[in-house]
C-alpha cells in the first residue's frame, strides 16, 4: 500500500457555454496522502468545487473532464464504468456539497437519506428482512450520534427543514461518513455557519478523521480555517493551482505573489494600525484566457517574462508554486 491515496495529474475540466468555452480547471495536479488533511483555498470561481466534482465523476453537462488522470487507491477512476464509479462514490470517497440545505432531499426524512446510502453501499449488512432494517437503524443512530446530534432515535424521523444550518451540515457529514469512506471531501462545510457553530463542525471533522484514519480535503476560502486544521494547502487561482505545500510554510513564507497578497490583505487584529494592502483589480474572465500567467493583470511584480505560460515549479522540498520568480534550483 502506497502512502498516496488520491493522485490527480493534469486535470482539465471545461464547460461549453454560449459565450464560449470556460476552462474551469486547467492542468491541476492534486495529491492526498493517507490520513492527511489537505486544505484547498482560492477565490470564488477559481475551480475548487469543479476540481473535486471531477474527481467524484459528478461534473454535469455542459461540463466534462477533458484531460488528465485521476487515480484513487491505485485505480484509474476515469476508466471506470458509471456503475463502478457509483460504487466508489458511496464507499470510498464521499463529498459534502457546498450548500447543505439544497443538497439534502427535502422530501425524505434524515433517516431515509442515511438508509439510502447504507442500502446501496454497506456490504456488512444482513441480506434482508427485519435484521437488515434493524442494522440500518442502529448504524444510522450511531452516525448521528457521532456527529453530535442528540436524541438521534427520534430525529431520524424528521425532515431537513426541522434542523438548524449547523445541524444540517452535521447531517450531511453523517451521510457522507455512513460507509466509512477513505476520503472525505468537505466543500465549504462551514461558510454559511456562525463562528461558534463553525468551530463545532470543524472539530467534528478533525475528530472523526483521527478516529477513522480517513483523509480529508477541506475546501474553504478561509485561510484561518486552513491554518488550524490542514496539514497541507493548495491555493487555486483562475482554474489553476498557484501554490502548494505544508500549511505552516505556505502561510509563514508564501512564494506566489497571489498568496502573498492574500495574506497581506486579510484584515485581522494582528495588522491593526497598519494599512492593509489589497490586491487591486479582479479575477480574469475564464473565457478566452491569454496564454500567460493568470495573475499577471493584478501582480505587482510582473515582468515581460510573465507573458508566456508559467508552469508549476519546485519552491523547496515538498513545495511548488506557479511563478517565474521561483528559482528552479532551490528544490
Amino acid at each position, binding site marked *: 500500500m502506497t502512502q498516496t491515496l488520491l493522485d490527480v495529474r493534469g486535470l482539465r475540466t471545461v464547460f461549453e457555454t454560449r459565450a464560449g468555452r470556460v476552462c474551469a480547471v486547467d492542468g491541476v495536479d492534486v495529491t492526498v496522502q493517507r490520513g492527511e488533511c489537505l486544505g484547498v483555498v482560492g477565490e470564488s470561481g477559481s475551480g475548487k468545487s469543479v476540481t473535486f466534482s471531477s474527481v467524484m465523476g459528478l461534473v454535469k453537462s455542459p461540463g466534462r473532464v477533458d484531460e488528465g488522470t485521476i487515480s484513487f487507491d491505485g485505480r484509474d477512476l476515469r476508466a471506470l464504468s458509471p456503475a463502478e464509479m457509483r460504487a466508489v462514490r458511496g464507499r470510498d470517497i464521499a463529498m459534502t456539497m457546498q450548500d447543505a440545505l439544497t443538497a439534502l432531499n427535502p422530501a425524505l426524512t434524515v433517516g431515509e437519506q442515511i438508509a439510502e446510502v447504507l442500502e446501496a453501499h454497506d456490504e456488512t449488512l444482513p441480506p434482508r428482512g427485519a435484521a437488515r432494517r434493524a442494522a440500518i437503524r442502529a448504524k444510522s443512530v450511531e452516525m448521528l450520534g457521532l456527529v453530535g446530534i442528540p436524541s438521534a432515535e427520534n430525529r431520524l424521523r424528521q425532515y431537513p427543514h426541522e434542523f438548524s444550518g449547523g445541524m444540517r451540515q452535521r447531517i450531511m457529514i453523517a451521510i457522507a461518513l455512513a460507509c466509512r469512506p477513505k476520503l472525505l471531501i468537505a466543500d465549504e462545510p462551514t461558510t454559511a455557519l456562525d463562528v461558534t457553530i463553525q468551530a*463545532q463542525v470543524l472539530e467534528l471533522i478533525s475528530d472523526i478523521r483521527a478516529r477513522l484514519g480517513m483523509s480529508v480535503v477541506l475546501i474553504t476560502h478561509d*485561510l484561518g480555517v486552513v491554518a488550524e486544521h490542514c496539514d497541507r494547502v493548495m491555493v487555486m487561482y483562475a482554474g489553476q493551482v498557484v501554490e502548494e505545500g505544508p500549511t505552516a510554510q505556505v502561510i509563514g513564507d508564501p512564494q506566489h505573489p497571489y498568496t502573498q497578497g492574500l495574506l497581506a490583505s486579510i484584515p485581522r487584529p494582528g*495588522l491593526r494600525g497598519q494599512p492593509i494592502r489589497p490586491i487591486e483589480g479582479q479575477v480574469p474572465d475564464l473565457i478566452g484566457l491569454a496564454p500567460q500567467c493568470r495573475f499577471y493583470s493584478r501582480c505587482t511584480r510582473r515582468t515581460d517574462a510573465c507573458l508566456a505560460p508559467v508552469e508549476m515549479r519546485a519552491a523547496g522540498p515538498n513545495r511548488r508554486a506557479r511563478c517565474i520568480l521561483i528559482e528552479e534550483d532551490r528544490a
Partner: protein
Amino acid sequence: MSLLTVENLSKHYEGRRSLVERLTGVPQTVVRAVNGIDLTVEKGEILGLIGESGCGKSTLGRAILRLHEPTTGKVTFDGTDVTALDAAGLKAMRRRMQIIFQDPYASLNPRRTVAQIVGLPLKLHGLAQTDDEARAIVARICERVGLKANQLDRYPHQFSGGQRQRIGIARALVSNPEFIVCDEPVSALDVSIQAQIIALLLELKREMGLTYLFISHDISVIGYLADRVAVMYLGEIVEMGPVEAILANPRHPYTQSLMSAVPEVDHAGRRARVRLAGDLPSPLNPPAGCKFHTRCPLAVEACRSRAPVTETVGPGHSAACHRLAENLSLLEGTPA
C-alpha cells in the same frame, strides 16, 4: 457629547399567523429582534457591532436610522431626537445618516443606471441645482470609490460584487453624510475584494471625517478596524468596550467563546478552544434569565431565572453576566 446616543432601543416584529391560527386564538408571536439596547458612538470613531446570524445586528442598524420604526426607545443624533422627527425632519436627517447594505446584489435597483442610483439622494435632498451639476458630483464620487467614468451609464447586473458594493458606497456618500451604518459591507465579497473595500472605507473615513457603526460577524475584520466593540447576543448587547480590551480581556462567556472560535492565520493552534454546546436559540422563544444560559459553560441557577444587569468592568468596558465578580475565564490556560 456623543454624536449618536441610543437609549433603550427595541424593535419587535410580530410573527405571521394564518387565518386559521387567528380564528382559533393561537397567540400572536413576537420576535424580539432588538431588546433594550443602550449605546453611544463618538464623532470620528468606528463602533464595531458583532454577533451571530439573526442576533439583530441589521435590525439595530436600521432602527437607528428609522428605516425600520423602533418599537420603543430613543435615538439622539448630534443633539436632535431622531425618534421624534416628523417626515420632513427625518428626510433632512437622512442626508446626514446613511447606510451601506449587507447584500450588494439585492440593494441596488436593477432598472436604474449607476448615475441614477448614485444621483438619487442628490435629487431627494435638493443638493444639486442642475442635471449637469448632479452628474458632475456623481462622477466625482464614483471616481473616488474606484468606478470609471465610462461605467456610469451601466446597470448593476453588469458589475461584479465588489464593484456593486462600490456603487452602494458612492450612493451613501454622495449626500455628504456624517454617520454611516456599514451593515456587513464585505461579507458577500471575495477575500481579496474584501480588503479593497475595507481599505476604501477607511480612507474615506479619514478624508471626510466620517463616523461608522460597522456591523460584521467577522471578529478579524472588527479587530482590525474598530475603535470600540459591542457584542450582541439574541437582541441584546452582552459586552461593550475598547477593542483592545475586548480582544485581550473579554469578560462575558459568550465573547470569550467567540474569541476562541475564530480560526486565525497568525495564531493557529495556540488558542484554548471553548466548546459551546447546542445551537442558537430561536428569538421567537428566547430563554428566560440570561439569554446565553442554554449554551453557557458557566451557567448557574441564577442565570436560568434572572437576567443579569450590565456592570462596568474596566474603563469604558461593560458586560452583563451574573458571574463577572468571580473573574472567571473560559480562556484560562491560553498561552499569551
